[in-house]
């Protein structure tokens, strides 16, 4: 307590005396200011980005020799675990007892500042510098205790001590205060900056959907985020260890060796595909460095690519199917042209019936292909959001009848009847060509998937919901419950081994795009396989 009171007194009186200084004093003061600035710069440079308070106190302490005379310079840090760290640098030879006196004075000062008894469980002591000689008769005659406060917290105490009386007056006090204050302020700022950056970083890592871990140089897990467990399928409430992670990877990748390699080569390692039981992961391993650029460990990012993989597979299947579907009509055109040419140049003469037949084949194949290419273009337009409608007021019953009539010949081949139940006339606004396309898609599907019975088309208007709904009901093979939801999605041509029919399934995707663009709804209902299906779409009346 005394030390604090004394030092406060010295400080105050120094400020008063400031006005009485002579010019000679002013030049000395200037010189000292330059010196102070140098020391501060040195402290700043040495502290760098360190937030190790012990180290900071150490740096400040070791810089004081340039400014002050002392026999010993010491610092004491009280650790949160109740241990005390005491470091003493001996500048001039003193006795063990001298150092004990210093230590005692520092503890007293600590008690005064904290206003509580300080009895460290253990003191981690280190004495450096000159040799000690207990034969000397030296006592602590003057000393100065300086608290180091960073971010409003007492982090340590610096002490200078001398065997000469009256060593530390106002000038020295001023120097010490300035230095510790400025160093402490700089560190406080740095600390709060780093804390907030660290906080942000931690928040980012914690909120990442990817699993992230960091390990130290001994391959021990130091950090992991919550997403990790889910991605690796680890079920435990206990804190994770590296073993859990190695286990979950089931020998698919030797993560520890890869981490060691990333550290040894100081190069990120990407493992593009690790296939676990029900997951596909992409791993990126990189070394982690501290501010000095030393490698202190490694980080691993586990990115879940299961969905991407599944999509990629679907896309590949879709492409393969499209290639097949496009090649089929091309093949027919090619072979038919070939036989046509042969027929035309045959010595036996041209057979008109044969030629007509072949040309019909070419026509049908070309139409099939055109339809397919148009569907593909429509899907592309829908996906790009560039689907444009030509909305006009038309009679929808007229359009339904038109389409039903167009499909009659095709239905008759399979002995199917097409029946339309609708009012005589019903007008609303829609794109006639596009809705015609939807009707054509749905009716041709019904015919394709029905081997006997009939196709019923029916229009119903709901004045309350302000919708007009067209139902196309068949007595065909039906749709299983699990397939119903997938009918209108791209890449999905239901190809069951029992009753697969030709088709890309693009027609339904396009139909959905058209109905969506009208602000309507399209859906399918079926009681189950072989129980027939109903495809329906509704259009809003007020559009």
């Amino acid at each position: 307590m005394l030390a604090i009171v004394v030092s406060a007194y010295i400080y105050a009186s120094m400020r008063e005396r400031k006005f009485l200084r002579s010019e000679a004093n002013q030049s000395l003061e200037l010189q000292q200011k330059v010196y102070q600035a140098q020391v501060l710069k040195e402290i700043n440079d040495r502290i760098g980005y360190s937030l190790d308070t012990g180290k900071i106190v150490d740096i400040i302490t070791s810089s004081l020799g340039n400014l002050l005379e002392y026999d010993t310079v010491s610092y004491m840090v009280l650790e949160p675990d109740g241990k005390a760290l005491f470091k003493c640098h001996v500048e001039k030879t003193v006795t063990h007892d001298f150092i004990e006196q210093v230590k005692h004075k520092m503890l007293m000062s600590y008690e005064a500042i904290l206003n509580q008894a300080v009895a460290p469980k253990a003191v981690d002591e280190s004495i450096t510098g000159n040799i000690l000689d207990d034969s000397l008769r030296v006592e602590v005659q003057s000393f100065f205790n300086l608290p180091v406060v960073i971010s409003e917290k007492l982090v340590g105490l610096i002490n200078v001590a001398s065997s000469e009386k009256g060593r530390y007056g106002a000038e020295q006090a001023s120097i010490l205060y300035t230095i510790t204050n400025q160093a402490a302020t700089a560190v406080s700022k740095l600390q709060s900056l780093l804390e907030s950056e660290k906080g942000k970083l931690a928040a980012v890592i914690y909120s990442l959907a990817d699993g992230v871990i960091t390990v130290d140089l001994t391959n021990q897990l130091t950090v992991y985020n919550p997403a990790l467990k889910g991605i690796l399928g680890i079920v435990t409430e206990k804190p994770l260890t590296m073993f859990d992670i190695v286990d979950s990877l089931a020998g698919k990748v030797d993560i520890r060796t890869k981490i060691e390699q990333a550290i040894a080569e100081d190069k990120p390692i990407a493992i593009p595909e690790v296939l676990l039981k029900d997951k596909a992961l992409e791993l990126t391993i990189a070394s982690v460095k501290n501010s000095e650029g030393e490698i202190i460990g490694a980080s691993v990012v586990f990115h879940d690519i299961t969905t991407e993989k599944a999509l990629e597979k679907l896309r590949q299947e879709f492409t393969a199917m499209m290639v097949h579907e496009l090649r089929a009509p091309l093949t027919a055109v090619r072979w038919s042209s070939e036989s046509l040419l042969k027929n035309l140049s045959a010595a036996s003469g041209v057979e008109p019936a044969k030629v007509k037949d072949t040309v019909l084949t070419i026509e049908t194949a070309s139409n099939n292909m055109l339809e397919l290419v148009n569907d593909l273009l429509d899907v592309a337009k829908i996906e790009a959001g560039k689907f444009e409608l030509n909305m006009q007021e038309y009679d929808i019953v007229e359009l339904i009848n038109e389409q039903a009539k167009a499909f009659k010949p095709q239905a008759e081949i399979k002995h199917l009847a097409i029946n339309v139940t609708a009012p005589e006339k019903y007008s609303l606004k829609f794109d006639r060509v596009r809705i015609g396309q939807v009707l054509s898609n749905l009716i041709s599907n019904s015919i394709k998937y029905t081997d006997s019975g009939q196709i019923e088309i029916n229009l119903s208007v709901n004045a309350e919901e302000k919708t007009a709904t067209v139902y196309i009901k068949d007595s065909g093979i039906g749709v299983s419950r699990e397939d119903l939801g997938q009918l209108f999605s791209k890449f999905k041509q239901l190809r069951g081994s029992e009753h697969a029919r030709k088709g890309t399934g693009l027609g339904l995707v396009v139909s959905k795009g058209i109905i969506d663009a009208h602000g309507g709804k399209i859906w399918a209902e079926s009681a189950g396989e072989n129980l027939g299906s109903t495809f329906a779409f509704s259009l809003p009346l007020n559009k």
Partner: protein
Amino acid sequence: MTKILLAEDDKLISNSLCDALKAAGYEPTPAYDGEEAVAKTKESVPDLILLDIMMPKLDGISVLWELKANPATASVPVIVLTNIGDVDTISKIVEAGATDYLLKSDQSVDEIIQKVKDVLARTVKLS
């Protein structure tokens, strides 16, 4: 007359190939899906089979396995005609015991007829 079973679900392709086979002096029988193809070989064993892969009900590779499993048809030469040209499919076709393999859109009808002739000639020599 040499009997050829043509398993092809695309009617247009089937028609034009049937015409060409007839013109070349063979007796083609069309089958429009995998099951029909297997059934037709049971009615009457053909001298050669032209087989598509992507077919309804039973795909070409399954048809091939069934043909090879049946002693009556195990030695009938099968030329696979398909438009799926990926390595995976080709290796499956070879594994299932096809005699030859042709990519439809790469061939002219004449080339296919020539292939049929070649395979038949080889088969006769062997038997």
